[in-house]
């Protein structure tokens, strides 16, 4: 058995030691098959997100391409919840070596699928499409649910610096006679519209102060796939509305809506968009590559409680949840009651994972713009044993955004990035739950590969405007 400890938070050493002791005692008691024991890995994780898709103890089995169970197995323990570990460990060892489907304590909501296809992303979509219903039920705006209680997008100093940098770019272009008649700026994922409003206020003031006359030439585009969000953002920009256009767009492919602006946009900004797009995860163990597959479930106890509270038969919950995801909170007739149901299901939602062995990197489900050799390059710099994101939604969005950039334009992305593969060794990077949405750290190394292919270099700078912020700023420069 191999023990992985990715991070030891102060004060949990004793709990970690006790967990290992418990497991070994249980292994001895159960007389675990020697082959299984030799291939067993115990992962003691510090889960950053208090709300996530894991039980205190999770068992991950591995399967070959033919569906045959392999001896590799992982038991992952969330060190935030050590008190629940012994029961979970006992359950995991009972299932290890048996048919993992042979359980009656879980209500499955889907079959095993690659993480990108899990039902959790449909919940995520519902959250953004029916944000007002969620916020009405929770009693707070989604930005208040962020760890810092507000979005880093709206930091006045950061916005002021962004405006100053942009004005400098315009000035340089102007001096060389290369400033376009219309100055296009794009923000994807507009939040409450606060950043756009701050940015435009600041830009107008700077332009007037310096007498450059750029402000009236601005064409400020707000793109989001949530119409309620766009409506809210348009209200927020107030007196700048004449310069602002809102565009319903899928963040995965801004080019689809804006192809007429290919190579014309001078500045594109996104905050906390990529961390909310679908991912896959790959795992390398003993030199072999595995794809993480997941299936969502509610613990039987949770399902029974929710069913009882809403007067539904427990067996009908999967159907009701499916209808919720299709129709929204009206599914129970009353939106308020439906939203309450939605929030409880989301709160109880968990993922069981398994590892599907891949024959090699060429079998990995890579997003557009990422080649097998990029994956090989990433693996070459990664720890031998590593679990990491294929940030496929982010990579797709990134690859479909870069062609919009004017040759002198740039892309700024504020988000939570893993900037080197080595960092994956040091902690759990998602998926977590953020209010009603899904959050994952973004594989910055992968975006670097996508950018290089498209003719850009990417750089990462810490977000220096809020102490202890985990946010980084990705910015592009034209590749030589």
């Amino acid at each position, binding site marked *: 058995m191999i023990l992985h400890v990715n991070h030891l938070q102060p004060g949990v050493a004793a709990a970690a030691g006790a967990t290992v002791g418990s497991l070994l005692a249980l292994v001895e008691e159960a007389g675990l098959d020697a082959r299984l024991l030799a291939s067993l890995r115990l992962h003691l994780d510090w889960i950053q997100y208090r709300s996530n898709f894991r039980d205190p103890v999770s068992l991950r089995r591995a399967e070959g391409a033919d569906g045959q169970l392999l001896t590799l197995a992982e038991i992952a323990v969330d060190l935030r919840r050590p008190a629940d570990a012994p029961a979970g460990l006992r359950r995991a060892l009972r299932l290890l070596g048996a048919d993992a489907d042979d359980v009656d304590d879980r209500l499955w909501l889907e079959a095993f699928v690659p993480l990108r296809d899990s039902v959790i992303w449909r919940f995520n979509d519902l959250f953004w499409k029916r944000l007002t219903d969620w916020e009405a039920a929770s009693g707070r705006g989604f930005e208040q649910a962020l760890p810092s209680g507000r979005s880093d997008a709206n930091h006045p100093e950061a916005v002021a610096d962004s405006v100053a940098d942009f004005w400098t770019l315009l000035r340089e272009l102007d001096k060389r*006679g290369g400033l*376009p008649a219309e100055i296009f700026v794009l923000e994807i994922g507009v939040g409450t519209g606060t950043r756009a409003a701050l940015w435009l206020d600041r830009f107008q003031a700077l332009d007037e102060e310096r007498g450059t006359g750029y402000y009236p030439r601005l064409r400020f585009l707000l793109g989001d796939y949530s119409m309620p969000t766009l409506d809210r953002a348009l209200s927020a920009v107030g007196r700048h509305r004449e310069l602002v256009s809102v565009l319903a767009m899928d963040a995965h492919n801004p080019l689809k809506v804006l192809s007429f602006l290919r*190579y014309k946009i001078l500045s594109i900004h996104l905050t906390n968009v990529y961390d909310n797009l679908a991912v896959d995860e790959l795992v390398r163990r003993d030199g072999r590559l595995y794809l993480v597959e997941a299936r969502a479930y509610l613990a039987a106890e949770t399902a029974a409680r929710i069913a009882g509270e809403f007067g539904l038969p427990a067996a009908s919950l999967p159907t009701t949840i499916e209808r919720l995801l299709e129709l929204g909170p009206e599914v129970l007739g009353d939106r308020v009651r439906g939203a309450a149901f939605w929030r409880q299901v989301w709160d109880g939602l968990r993922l069981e994972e398994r590892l599907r062995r891949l024959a090699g990197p060429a079998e990995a489900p890579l997003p557009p713009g990422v080649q097998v050799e990029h994956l090989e390059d990433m693996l070459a710099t990664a720890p031998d044993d590593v679990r990491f994101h294929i940030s496929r939604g982010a990579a797709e969005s990134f690859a479909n955004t870069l062609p919009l950039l*004017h040759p002198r334009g740039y892309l700024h992305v504020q988000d939570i990035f893993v900037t080197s593969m080595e960092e994956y060794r040091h902690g759990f990077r998602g998926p977590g739950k953020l209010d009603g949405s899904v959050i994952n750290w973004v594989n910055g190394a992968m975006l670097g590969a996508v950018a290089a292919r*498209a*003719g850009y270099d990417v750089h990462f700078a810490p977000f220096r405007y809020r102490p202890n912020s985990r946010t980084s700023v990705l910015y592009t420069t034209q*590749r030589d």
Partner: protein
Amino acid sequence: MPMLVTAVVGSYSMPAWLERAKNDYLHRRITRHDLDEMHDAVVKAAIKDQEIAGVDVITDGELRRDNMIDYFTERLPGVEVDHTGKKSFFDFASSVVRGRMPTAPLGLVPELTFLKQYSTRRVKVSITGPHSLVKRIRNEHYPSDEAFALDNARVLNLELKLFVCAAPTEIQIDEPYYSGFPEDLGWGIRAVNALVEGVQARIGLHVCYGNRYGKPSWEGSYRYLFPAVLDARVQQLTLEFARRGEEDVTLFAEFKPPFDLGLGVIDVKTHDVETPAIVAERIRQALRVVPTDRLAVNPDCGLVHLPRPVAFAKLEAMVAGAAIVRRELGGA
């Protein structure tokens, strides 16, 4: 030859496997011999594709080249090249010139003879012009970029003459860096003239807004080329219009240059394949300004960044579009 001669600008689609092989060679995972064999095979395929598409003037697809700079700096006598910072074949190696460049051939003639061996079509070889090369090579010897470019042109001039001795060919000089440094245009054109001095071939000058990584490096109007470009001793100026719109074609009416126009009718920066009707309309628009016998038809730039099926389909559309207009004009 028919009116509205069709041609490629230079490069043809590079297969992903060749990109991998070039990287493998860069990192010494395969031998030069293996890579050369792949180059021969892929060049034959590129020739065949261009012929089947019906292009009148073809190239070898430039598929032996890592990129438009290194292929020349590695061969220019007196230029020192450092590959250590080069992670991908497509990256530019750093290079420096520390003394006067000696006169010596670059060894490019076998490219042409190989092309002629496998095709009976009119052929073209393209070379990166002195201005673009000077912008990429660190100059530690010459008193100015212009002096360096003129001496560079002297060395390259020998290669052009060797091409002409080896086989009948057209020659294209690629100068995309003009668009990034319009202030250099005066001496840039003088360098081109030094380059073509005494070369008995049809010479074209290709100026675009860059195609590195399949995206433009600069934006603007071709107006900056005029009137300085009128002094270029070339027979054709090949420009990109499909992506940027035809507005700048009117510069040919305004300045009435002594050379033909190579009209870019295929956008090489998008995978969307033009229809023959769109190509025909682009040609008709240009014919309002440029006489039929002064107009040739080509893509905006090289096709290297396009997948092969897209590149091939675009060439077919170009040829079909030109044929539509030829028929309208009563030609073959």
